[in-house]
């Protein structure tokens, strides 16, 4: 069932358009410069600690640096926090099985997740997705809320692109990109909802909530940087397209060496903000937490 928003064709064309290529040498320069700049920043962390800079923390440091000092709230599964994971699995099903609607796919994903979670209690196989155990223990009304939230999310992504026009393979909800520079206590973690192969390498789609603002381009460039640093032979993505379904807004970042250098600078600055916040908190408290994890976790 291929249906799409009026702008889907234009968005897809933007996604597949040629980008300014970033050669292996230029990418290596970005990497070296970032390592040289960020390593001393994270070296200030107490022994055994590491900064995991993900999209949320990157944005917080840019938008609301004062919030980095506040304690983090523990993660609580909810229909809102698991809609992306369930929704991505559902869109992947829609893509693989022609004629499947997002609502049907979400129902299937949830049913399989609950079955896998129940099976994992009895024996070891297969490993259920992170939300499945929580979902499996919910009463009917709460399960319906999960299904409704994920269906709306999945439908928005499903109708935002012209999937038939995307060259195969299309990867929906791939693993996050994790990059750890050598001898540095930093992990850069980025994620994209959709990855496609293009003539220039790869292009990424990122789904965001709310409306785009002055920081949005930096957020998309951060995703481009994470994918580039982990890319190996594939090289940097040619484009990152950000979708804001609530606003019907689209922003495109054509990935150049300049964009990646800019994103690397912002990674250094965001890392410094988090490290400072941590040290400030550590002065007032005995137990460090939030953005920092113990080595090896």
């Amino acid at each position, binding site marked *: 069932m291929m249906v799409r928003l009026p702008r889907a064709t234009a968005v897809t064309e933007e996604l597949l358009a040629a980008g300014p290529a970033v050669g292996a040498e230029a990418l290596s320069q970005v990497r070296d410069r970032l390592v040289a700049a960020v390593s001393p920043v994270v070296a200030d962390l107490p022994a055994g600690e590491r900064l995991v800079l993900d999209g949320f923390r990157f944005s917080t440091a840019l938008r609301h640096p004062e919030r980095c000092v506040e304690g983090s709230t523990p993660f609580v599964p909810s229909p809102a926090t698991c809609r992306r994971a369930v929704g991505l699995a559902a869109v992947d099903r829609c893509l693989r099985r022609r004629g499947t609607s997002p609502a049907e796919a979400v129902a299937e994903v949830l049913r399989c997740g609950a079955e896998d979670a129940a099976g994992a209690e009895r024996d070891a196989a297969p490993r259920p997705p992170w939300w499945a155990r929580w979902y499996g223990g919910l009463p*009917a009304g709460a399960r319906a809320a999960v299904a409704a939230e994920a269906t709306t999310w999945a439908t928005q992504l499903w109708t935002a692109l012209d999937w038939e026009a995307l060259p195969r393979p299309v990867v929906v909800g791939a693993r996050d990109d994790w990059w750890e520079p050598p001898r540095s206590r930093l992990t850069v973690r980025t994620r994209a909802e959709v990855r496609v192969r293009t003539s220039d390498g790869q292009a990424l789609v990122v789904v965001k909530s709310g409306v785009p603002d002055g920081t949005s381009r930096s957020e998309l460039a951060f995703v481009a940087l994470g994918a580039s640093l982990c890319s190996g032979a594939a090289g940097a993505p040619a484009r990152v397209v950000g979708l804001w379904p609530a606003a019907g807004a689209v922003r495109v970042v054509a990935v150049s060496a300049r964009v990646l250098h800019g994103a690397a600078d912002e990674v250094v600055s965001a890392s410094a903000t988090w490290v400072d916040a941590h040290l400030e908190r550590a002065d007032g408290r005995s137990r460090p937490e939030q953005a920092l994890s113990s080595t090896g976790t």
Partner: protein
Amino acid sequence: MRSSLARHPAGRSRGDTLLARLRGDAGSRPAVDPGLAGGLRDWLEDELSEAVAGLPDGTGPVRVTKDALDQVLVCEAHFLSERRQPRQVTTEMARGTLVDLLFRQWVTTGAMGDAWEDAVCALRVGRDDGVLGFVEQLAPDARARLAAEVEEHAARIAECWPILAPSWMARTQERLDVPLAGGRIRLAGVVDLAIGAPSAGQASVCIVEVKSGRRRLEHRGDVHLYALLETLRSGAPPFRVATFYTADGEIDVEPVGRDVLLGALHRVVAGTTKLCRMAAGAEPDRTPNPLCGWCPGLADCVPGRRQVEDSTHTGPVTRP
């Protein structure tokens, strides 16, 4: 444990009628004018440019919601006193939230068990806006009364709404958040139900707003606003808007033509201009009206008190 609600034969014919009204005749759906959304956006931004220019630097975005529009267009001072009021959950608000959750459940899964149990469980995992605490603190008899009411509304939903085919692409509680003037104004809303596959060629989306309270004049303005927001957001207008009343199972359905969109646009311009004035710190106008008796600012409002006194001489006013 109350009985489960499921679609039954009597409901099927009523549901089919409802669907036919929502779906209409596919051939009569208007073609999408590709320039319409851009034109409406330009028009809005031109009309609001002066109001936006009057906003002081550093003020956050002016949020334009259906409630803000309803209030500020009645009386600017009323809007401000509503905003200053601490949010207090009432039985009607709790019922509305619980019924919305059950409607969402029905549309998504096509089944309901014990309506009260289902709605409260959905509330427990959702965003906490104070309703859960309110419901949990109700005295047993008040809770039983609310549960019975919710049960009745749930029965109406199950009776009137068929299970929607997956091809209808039902989206529930879909957020619309349209920035204007570089984000200084944000037109925002949450659509209870949007159905119909979005299409580039022909308007094909129908927006449904669910109300558990009485019919009110403002409800048409609310769905017209959503029609405008959906047009700005997606680039295509919905072809129909509807308001479903869970108390009696009635549904008001209206086609969306240019008149609806332009009416909504003029209302947004008028209301947003006032909201920008308020955001800029201007003295609010007081416009006495038949609703003054329900205004939280009545005690400090001379014209409002006069209005209430005059209306007690001319006879009681019931809130429409």
